[in-house]
């Protein structure tokens, strides 16, 4: 029997409290929702039809893109795996089946971790503020949330794992249509079970232990996802994995995983369903605040705020030793900026782990799928930019709080440059590790000759790193979409003016930086000319990134 059942029964119907007389039946959740939500009738048939059209179209386009990408990848994989590599430095590659399964599981774990950080059981900010203090049964308010999020978790898991399963069949060209269908269906079933079972498990700490416990659970899930990626990378580098794993060999482990997930649903899920009314306001409010930030960042297409919403500390408070300075080695404006930036990064160690994981992704994908060299360069472009973005949080926060930047005796022109320096140094290190790792399994790393030795690739990466950092600086200070003007109708739905620019400002500069990397990969060596080209490209990128950031910083100030 839950808390609410006890007290619901104990309520005296008379309710002789000071204030307005009560006695009417309390509203149900449906009553509250119907009162708070805009009715379809009020919005009009035209709006409803447009909404349905947009949803169907977006789902169709998304599904088509996934299937198309799946088909292209299958073809590429079959070609890639049939080759034996380009040079003597080829390392045994991980099985594509294992890679697909591992990356899919890691993706599901990351999404469940993100769900933990926004609260597995939470309402929006307004319902939390206005509904949860009402003396209505809280379990009736929260059970629909459990149901909806369980369904969403299952669907997302099914899409991710089903897609990965359909790609995995590319490693076994002899599988027919039935094999493809079974890989797709089996993957979807496994993903649905993982999503559902995982969601059932993460709801328990949210209901019984509170915010800190659920944030810790999210950290554990993140660590598990990272461990999966690291295991795949290690298997690729040291050649632990077999070259070929038949998809059918995954049937037994998949069935075991499904059984475990069903057990989790029947135990933890059933308990959560029973006890969801015991979720505390502390947990609900924390989740609501994060969900509010998340929703706002998605609506504004602002991935900067999205990252902050997902990475925000559970309590927002820090313990400090009495008398201890937080920035002990700051002795002037420049070192104060660097100290503060370092402090900010040090307080979010997951940013370093995320950047490290990004360094392994090209290696894992190339090892497992024999990806073409063009795809390898594409992966380095994406992961290089994302890693720099992850480490550029101080610059990104500059756009959020321009007043803080104005408080320093540093010009708005010099400040972005100061912010660029430490990230550029970190990214030089990142590139020096990630690029040689990425080319390892493509047979591009061999010998001691100039251009093909590991140090040549490391130099190429080290030179590219500051360029990616500059691109991230440009992205950090990009303008937000203009939500004050009417949205533009597109085939993908309504978009606010400036949405495309908000998404592309930053990655565009990263393309310039990645061009020498692409040429090096295509020409099978980081030759001196390309190294010089990389230095030039990164210098140009740094100049452009700094100029743009200084211009935007002056405008914001």
């Amino acid at each position, binding site marked *: 029997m839950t808390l609410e059942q006890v007290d619901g029964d104990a309520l005296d119907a008379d*309710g002789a*409290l000071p204030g*307005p*007389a009560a006695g*009417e039946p309390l509203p149900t959740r449906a*009553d509250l929702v119907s009162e708070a939500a805009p009715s379809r009738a009020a919005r009009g048939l035209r709006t409803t039809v447009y909404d349905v059209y947009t949803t169907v179209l977006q789902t169709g386009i998304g599904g088509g893109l996934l299937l198309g990408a799946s088909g292209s990848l299958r073809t590429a994989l079959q070609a890639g795996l049939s080759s034996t590599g380009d040079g003597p430095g080829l390392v045994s590659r991980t099985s594509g089946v294992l890679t697909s399964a591992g990356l899919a599981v890691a993706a599901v774990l990351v999404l469940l971790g993100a769900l933990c950080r926004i609260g597995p059981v939470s309402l929006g900010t*307004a319902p939390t503020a206005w509904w949860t203090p*009402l003396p209505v049964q809280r379990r009736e308010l929260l059970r629909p949330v459990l149901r909806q999020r369980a369904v969403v978790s299952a669907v997302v898991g099914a899409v991710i794992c089903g897609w990965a399963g359909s790609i995995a069949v590319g490693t076994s060209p002899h599988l027919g249509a039935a094999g493809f269908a079974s890989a797709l269906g089996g993957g979807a079933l496994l993903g649905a079970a993982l999503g559902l079972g995982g969601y059932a498990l993460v709801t328990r700490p949210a209901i019984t232990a509170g915010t800190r416990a659920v944030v810790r659970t999210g950290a554990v899930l993140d660590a598990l996802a990272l461990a999966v990626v690291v295991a795949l990378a290690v298997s690729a580098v040291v050649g632990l994995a077999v070259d070929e794993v038949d998809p059918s060999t995954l049937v037994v482990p998949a069935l075991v995983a499904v059984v475990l997930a069903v057990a989790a649903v029947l135990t933890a899920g059933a308990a959560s369903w029973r006890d969801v009314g015991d979720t505390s*306001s502390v947990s609900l409010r924390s989740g609501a605040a994060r969900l509010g930030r998340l929703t706002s960042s998605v609506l504004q297409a602002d991935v900067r705020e999205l990252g902050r919403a997902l990475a925000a500390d559970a309590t927002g408070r820090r*313990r400090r030793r009495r008398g201890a300075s937080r920035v002990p080695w700051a002795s002037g404006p420049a070192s104060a900026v660097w100290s503060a930036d370092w402090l900010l990064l040090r307080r979010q160690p997951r940013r370093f782990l995320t950047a490290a994981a990004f360094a392994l992704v090209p290696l894992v994908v190339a090892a497992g799928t024999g990806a073409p060299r063009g795809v390898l360069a594409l992966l380095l472009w994406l992961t290089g930019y994302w890693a720099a973005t992850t480490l550029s949080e101080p610059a990104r926060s500059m756009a959020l709080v321009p007043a803080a930047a104005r408080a320093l005796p540093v010009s708005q022109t010099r400040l972005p440059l100061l912010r660029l320096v430490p990230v550029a140094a970190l990214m030089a290190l990142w590139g020096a590790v990630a690029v040689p790792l990425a080319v390892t399994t493509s047979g591009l790393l061999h010998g001691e000759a100039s251009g093909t030795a590991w140090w040549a690739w490391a130099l190429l990466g080290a030179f590219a790193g500051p360029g990616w950092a500059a691109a991230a600086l440009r992205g950090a200070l990009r303008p937000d979409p203009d939500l004050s003007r009417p949205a533009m109708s597109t085939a993908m739905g309504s978009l606010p003016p400036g949405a495309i620019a908000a998404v592309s400002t930053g990655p565009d500069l990263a393309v310039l930086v990645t061009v020498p990397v692409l040429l090096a990969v295509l020409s099978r060596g980081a030759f001196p000319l390309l190294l010089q080209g990389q230095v030039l490209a990164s210098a140009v990128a740094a100049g452009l990134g700094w100029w743009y950031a200084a211009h935007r910083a002056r405008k914001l100030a």
Partner: protein
Amino acid sequence: MSQKQQPKQAGASARRKPAGAATASAPARTKPRRKSSGPALLELDGLTVGYTKSPVCAPVTVSVAAGEAVCLVGANGAGKSTVLRAVAGLLEPLGGEVRLRGAVVDERTVDFRRQVACVFDEDAWFAELSVAEHLELVARGHGVRDVVAVVDAELTAQRLSEHADELPTALSSGQRRRLLLAAALVRPRALLLLDEPEQRLDPTGRDTLLERLKAERDAGTAMLLATHDTVLLRGLADRAVVIDDAVCRVVDAEEAARLVTEPGAGA
């Protein structure tokens, strides 16, 4: 909610009753003052609060009876709001206990939520609901009879009648503050928790607030409020708790007001 359609259909015309009709329900709450000598409704027994493992202030011990108002005073950051949040169940205490009618409080219980109304500095609103509809939501959620009349009376009392059909986001910060106060007063309550209710109110608003809270107290509502306002302290408080790092003392309202105006006076 059997009558949920009623206010929407009634619309603004039903809300805009003559001022006399709107205020007619107010005297029902203004009974002769009960002397606050009854059993404690709320007891804070060595309550220790903080956001990490370190307490923000010394343990608080005080009790509040029905029809009694106790103020929390102290410097900015002393921990007044933190104590209030712990009493409201929005923060896990580090130590000690909070009891309501003798039972340790748990905001997850329906009975606690029925008895305790809070006015904290919150700014979350339903995008589609007007000022009056927010109040109706609260009143209906507590099973209040004659919701429209109760809401109209409170809108009038808070000088929000002209804004009844506006969205809360269109109001000024002071008006939004009055809306939050109204939301706590359109429902039955045994205990009112208020965090600096005078904040952002104009002088008229502060006067109205004092009169409303005095009427509430006299009608038997227990009150625990954090405030810096000496007028509220002198006009409303039966006692006050001085929140401090070293020790939290219970003093009379006059001494508390003196401490607010001369922070070093009680040292």
